[in-house]
């Protein structure tokens, strides 16, 4: 049972195309786990369809249909999205990890070397590049029983639990749970004892460590290449 979901505004931003790539990916990842949010998004898309059907028509150039028909038989550009998903997984994503992540994420991860960096004895991070400068997307792994440093947020942090579970002062979060931390929230996540916890996280600004030497700060920044 998933107890933590994106709020209605985020789901609406998602369905209307208002989100940047990284937050968009975090919502889609949550949807892989959550039928309830999928149902909400489905309704929001229907609203989009109704707004489209209800729109004032704008006349098209006379030859647009003919031009378009002529283009239909052209071979598909290799970059067309449809095919990306079907590519055989490359070796860079080790099968051990791949098995633990939703299939949806494979298409981003297959395209890059995941480089895990240790932030502490129990916490490591691997940046995922989606070619976007204003957000940082990353996988976080907290070892079983491990703790992340206490930190607060200058920007908004979105987290989806992919595997295992973790807890903080406010509760326990399990696979599929979606969390939004607002600027000013301070928390210290720790994994449950039985297994490591893997999360997908999106940061809109670097987080600030609290009560820990500032020197750690640069390590917390994941620089999308």
């Amino acid at each position, binding site marked *: 049972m998933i107890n933590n979901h994106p709020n209605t505004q985020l789901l609406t931003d998602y369905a209307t195309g208002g989100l940047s790539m990284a937050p968009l990916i975090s919502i889609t990842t949550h949807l892989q786990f959550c039928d309830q949010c999928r149902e*909400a998004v489905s309704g929001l*898309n229907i*609203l989009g*369809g109704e707004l*489209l059907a209800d729109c004032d028509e*704008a006349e098209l150039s006379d030859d647009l249909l003919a031009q378009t028909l002529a283009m239909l038989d052209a071979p598909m550009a290799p970059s067309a999205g449809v095919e990306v998903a079907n590519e055989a997984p490359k070796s860079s994503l080790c099968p051990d990890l791949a098995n633990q992540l939703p299939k949806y994420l494979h298409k981003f991860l297959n395209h890059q070397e995941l480089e895990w960096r240790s932030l502490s004895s129990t916490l490591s991070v691997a940046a995922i590049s*989606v070619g976007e400068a204003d957000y940082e997307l990353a996988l976080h792994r907290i070892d079983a029983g491990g703790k992340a440093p206490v930190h607060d947020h200058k920007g908004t942090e979105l987290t989806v639990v992919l595997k295992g579970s973790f807890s903080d002062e406010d509760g326990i979060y399990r696979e599929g749970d979606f969390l939004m931390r607002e600027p000013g929230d301070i928390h210290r996540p720790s994994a449950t004892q039985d297994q490591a916890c893997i999360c997908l996280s999106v940061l809109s600004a670097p987080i600030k460590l609290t009560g820990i030497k500032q020197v750690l700060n640069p390590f917390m920044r994941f620089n999308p290449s």
Partner: protein
Amino acid sequence: MVTHIKTKAKMNKPSGPDWNALLVKVGSHQDKAAFGALFSHFGPLLKGFLLKGGGVEPEQAEELVQETMIKVWRKAPSYAPTQAAASTWMYTIARNTRIDWLRKHAKKNHQTDELVAEDLFDENEESSPFTALIQTRNASNIKEHLNSLPQEQLQVLTLMYFQGKSGQEVADELAIPLGTVKSRVRLALQKLKLKLSPEGEEQVVYAS
């Protein structure tokens, strides 16, 4: 190759042909006549939709209409009328096409990635266990209540859907707090009897 539409498009609604069935024909038979009919109907709507959003010239809007319809042609084999009405399906393709177009034209992002919006959205977006049911119920609820939404709620939805603005961007543009935008969106969705996120906020009673 052009094949004949054997029977006349089914008139299951007073409003016109059965677009879902035409879309199925495009997918199963590469039926160019059916595609032409869809193009003639949805093309002007798509252009109107894009122009209402602003930020694009009429020629660019036509480029986007063309790009959207070409994707419709290519993706039609995966279209399932039990999962989505043609208009809903077209909407999601048009939305994704516009996202990619805007990204391509934005200077602030790197140009190195080959990710397209279609890869980022949920492939099974439309297939919740309740799809067929909510599809019909939602569509008729929306039709019934859309025109009676208060102006301020309609304005927020319009900015979001037609311009692809996020709640925060709408708040900035209207110079109102984000919280106000959020509550207008929630109130509007409740009036349209759409499901809200299960997260925190007060839930609507799901009257059928």
